[in-house]
């Protein structure tokens, strides 16, 4: 019996792991995207404390390891009576971390929108928030779509870290297979292939979106 036949026997194990990884990544992406937007709006706010908070948040979450953040949320908080379920902890940790990176991507996107667009919108009587919502953000998001896609791919890969708190994601299931088969290379290559299938599919989807929303100035 060759190595790949053995892997095929574990297909349901891999699939259940992929399911968990996808579920966790989507949750983290959704939360991270919204938080990232909030952070960048705070960063551009007229209220100084909001700007400081946003800048500090980004520095702290970019500057400390995701694993430490995950452990603080799951183990650290439980010492203070905040017992979050595993999945919630994992999704929140990945989302909070990703929000910092997304906020920086959004910021670059907003800075890339021509100031003339803002002037045109304001001259038509739009308020600052209308201008941001209808004119600046749609253009900013289109401009940085490749970078956002990149971040989503990173999330799928980095989410493997939640294995450490016992969430049954793809990495976790691979460990189960390793412990069952006493083999390493085969199960790990299978695991890598599964991650690659997910990230490659996402990367192609982002490419399609980019073409769909393309326009020239």
């Amino acid at each position, binding site marked *: 019996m060759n190595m790949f036949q053995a892997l095929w026997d574990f297909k349901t194990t891999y699939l259940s792991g992929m399911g968990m990884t996808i579920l966790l990544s989507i949750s983290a992406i959704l939360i991270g995207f919204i938080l990232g937007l909030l952070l960048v709006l705070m960063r551009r706010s007229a209220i100084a404390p909001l700007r400081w908070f946003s800048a500090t948040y980004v520095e702290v979450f970019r500057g400390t390891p995701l694993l430490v953040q995950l452990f603080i949320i799951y183990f650290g908080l439980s010492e203070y009576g905040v017992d979050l379920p595993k999945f919630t902890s994992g999704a929140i940790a990945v989302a909070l971390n990703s929000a910092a990176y997304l906020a920086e991507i959004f910021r670059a996107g907003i800075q890339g929108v021509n100031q003339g667009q803002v002037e045109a919108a304001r001259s*038509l*009587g739009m308020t600052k928030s209308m201008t941001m919502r209808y004119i600046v953000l749609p253009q900013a998001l289109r401009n940085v779509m490749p970078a956002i896609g990149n971040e989503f791919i990173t999330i799928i890969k980095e989410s493997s870290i939640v294995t450490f708190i016992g969430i049954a994601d793809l990495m976790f299931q691979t460990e189960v297979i390793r412990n069952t088969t006493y083999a390493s290379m085969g199960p790990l290559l299978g695991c890598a292939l599964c991650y690659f299938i997910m990230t490659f599919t996402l990367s192609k989807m982002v490419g399609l979106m980019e073409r769909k929303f393309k*326009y020239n100035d």
Partner: protein
Amino acid sequence: MINITNLHKSYGQLNILKGIDLEINAGEVVVVIGPSGSGKSTLLRCLNLLETPTKGEIRFEGEIINDKKHDINTTREKMGMVFQSFNLFPHMSILNNITISPIKVKKMDKKAAETIAYELLDKVGLKDKASAFPAQLSGGQKQRIAIARALAMQPHVMLFDEPTSALDPEMVGEVLEVMKSLAADGMTMVIVTHEMGFAREVGDRIIFMDGGNIVEQGTPDTFFANPQHARTRDFLSRVL
């Protein structure tokens, strides 16, 4: 309609406007000319507070608009502005470019806004471009759409900041035609331009600026035929 008193604008040590006094009456077409760096665009941009004056007072229909308590958005609804670089919204169709502000700012319903938009597209001769995107238009067409977009807010005055300076020569005419018909309709207009022929033909009053001051003003006939100041004569001798 617009009263400007002792208007100053400076960036740090650099004084762009050095005490402008100007009155613009309803229905008047005022053309501002002058060498680059004379402050004419800055003056125009102060009128709808795209630039914040350093000192002085701007009244629009009786209200001081550069007062901190004044809500500038309500004033901007009544002041259309056309830019040198068009600044159409590239992610929206031409129709949406024109209707977004009436719908979002004036809370007009979509149908009514679109009716107005089609009338304006007809007026600027681009009715067939409603579903096109800005990238598909020529410069002259973009600028005519920009004019239609500003008109959709039914402004009381239109500000033009070098509207033909970014255009290829063969497209200047079509934009000036639209502006002429606006003037003929009685729209109050303030136009910063280098088109002297247009200024002479359409302007009710020419204003010559240099070094942050209004040097001279008058009707096109007296201004071009008989300029009073040496700086005006010098400028005209170089551009005419």
